[in-house]
């Protein structure tokens, strides 16, 4: 499982005013556990055990090579250009 705790430390360091982080920090103090433990569990809860780095679309890579261009798409593009 990828360790994304470090990433969240950056987020914590930069956004201590974020309500979710403040709530988590208060909970960590109440339970007497490190904040990183709750952050990591929150990541797993939301993004799953095998997720990539946290993002709004956790399962999507930002850049990737995908399926082949369809022949019909090329034909449609030419038809479209012929009609404008």
């Amino acid at each position, binding site marked *: 499982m990828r360790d994304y705790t470090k990433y969240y430390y950056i987020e914590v360091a930069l956004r201590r005013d974020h309500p979710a982080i403040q709530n988590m920090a208060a909970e960590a103090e109440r339970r007497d556990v490190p904040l990183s433990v709750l952050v990591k569990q929150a990541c797993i809860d939301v993004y799953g055990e095998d997720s990539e*780095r946290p993002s709004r679309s956790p399962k999507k890579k930002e*850049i990737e090579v995908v399926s082949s261009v369809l022949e019909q798409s090329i034909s*449609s*593009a030419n*038809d*479209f250009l012929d009609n404008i």
Partner: protein
Amino acid sequence: MTLTLNLGFDRGNARTNVATIPDGTSAFLEIDVSSMIAEGNMKRYQMIQAGSGGTDHLATNELTVEHDDSVYFLADFADQGRNPTTGFGDKNRYHGKHTKIALMGYSAMMATRIASSTREAVVNLVMGVPFRAYQEQQEKIVSELVGRYDYSFKGRPFVLHIDSVRVFMEGAGAAIYQGFEKDATIGVVDSGSLTTNLLRFDGARAHTEECTSFEIGIGTARDRLNTRFEEKYGRELNQNEWDQILYASLGKVPYPELYADGESVDIDDLRVWIASSIAQTGSDKNTLISKLWSSQSGKTASSFKKVLHVGGGSYYFHKSLQQIIKSAERPQEPERANSRGFAVLANQIAQRNKVLKRA
């Protein structure tokens, strides 16, 4: 080394999709990212770069553009910047700074993915805009975006030449990608976060009298949900919370644990409210779709061979669309259909231009 990219560009209000077909391949290279862009904090940015703050270095997929003495954080990295925005609701968003920064960043990202040592690219751009913007802003978009851009991408200098820009209606890319029907009519419903675009094609020709766009989308559902949330819990939802609730409504992730004044938010509230917000918004869309495409019998798009439902909003509104158009189809990865079609179109335009130059 200068790379030429024929780019399909779909700049949505929530997500940006970019596609190209690298020379010598028959596969798409694609970018699918949040449309957020934020102002970067220069001091903190340099501190992180220098490593002197005791925090980690920027990860390789944290996207930054430095241009005109300003730093911009793109996509998910915009969370770390100030005033993150997608340009939502800005009428000039298709030719303003936000779009230019996105083009700088994602062109460089594409180019360096294809050839890592590239520091200069020439782009032939095909982009889609809502139908109304297509009618009113085409020339402005072209004149604003064509040109040379000098900047740094992830700390390395880059030069971008946008040599040509062609603007088409959103939804046209999807129709091209999925294919026209030679002797039949198809419709395209492109559901976005701000706008819904309706296009009718007879063969490969747009029937412009039955094409339009209107400002109802996932953002409308968000506003409805936000109103109910604020009424009960006394605060607004932020963008992150909204995104999580939206994905949760599809069953992709659990509903988030939210708090208001230290009290936990009832997850059943979120579940019920998002469902009714989407249903109400879908119904509003259907009213306008029916108004444009209904026949004397009262049926909607009944003479069309098919209606394609594309855009990221189609994940949420497809069931409601099928209430008025039973045959509506949602292709695989509907949010990528436009940029893929525009990439194919960009390639064909470039090939035709080569032939013309030789002649």
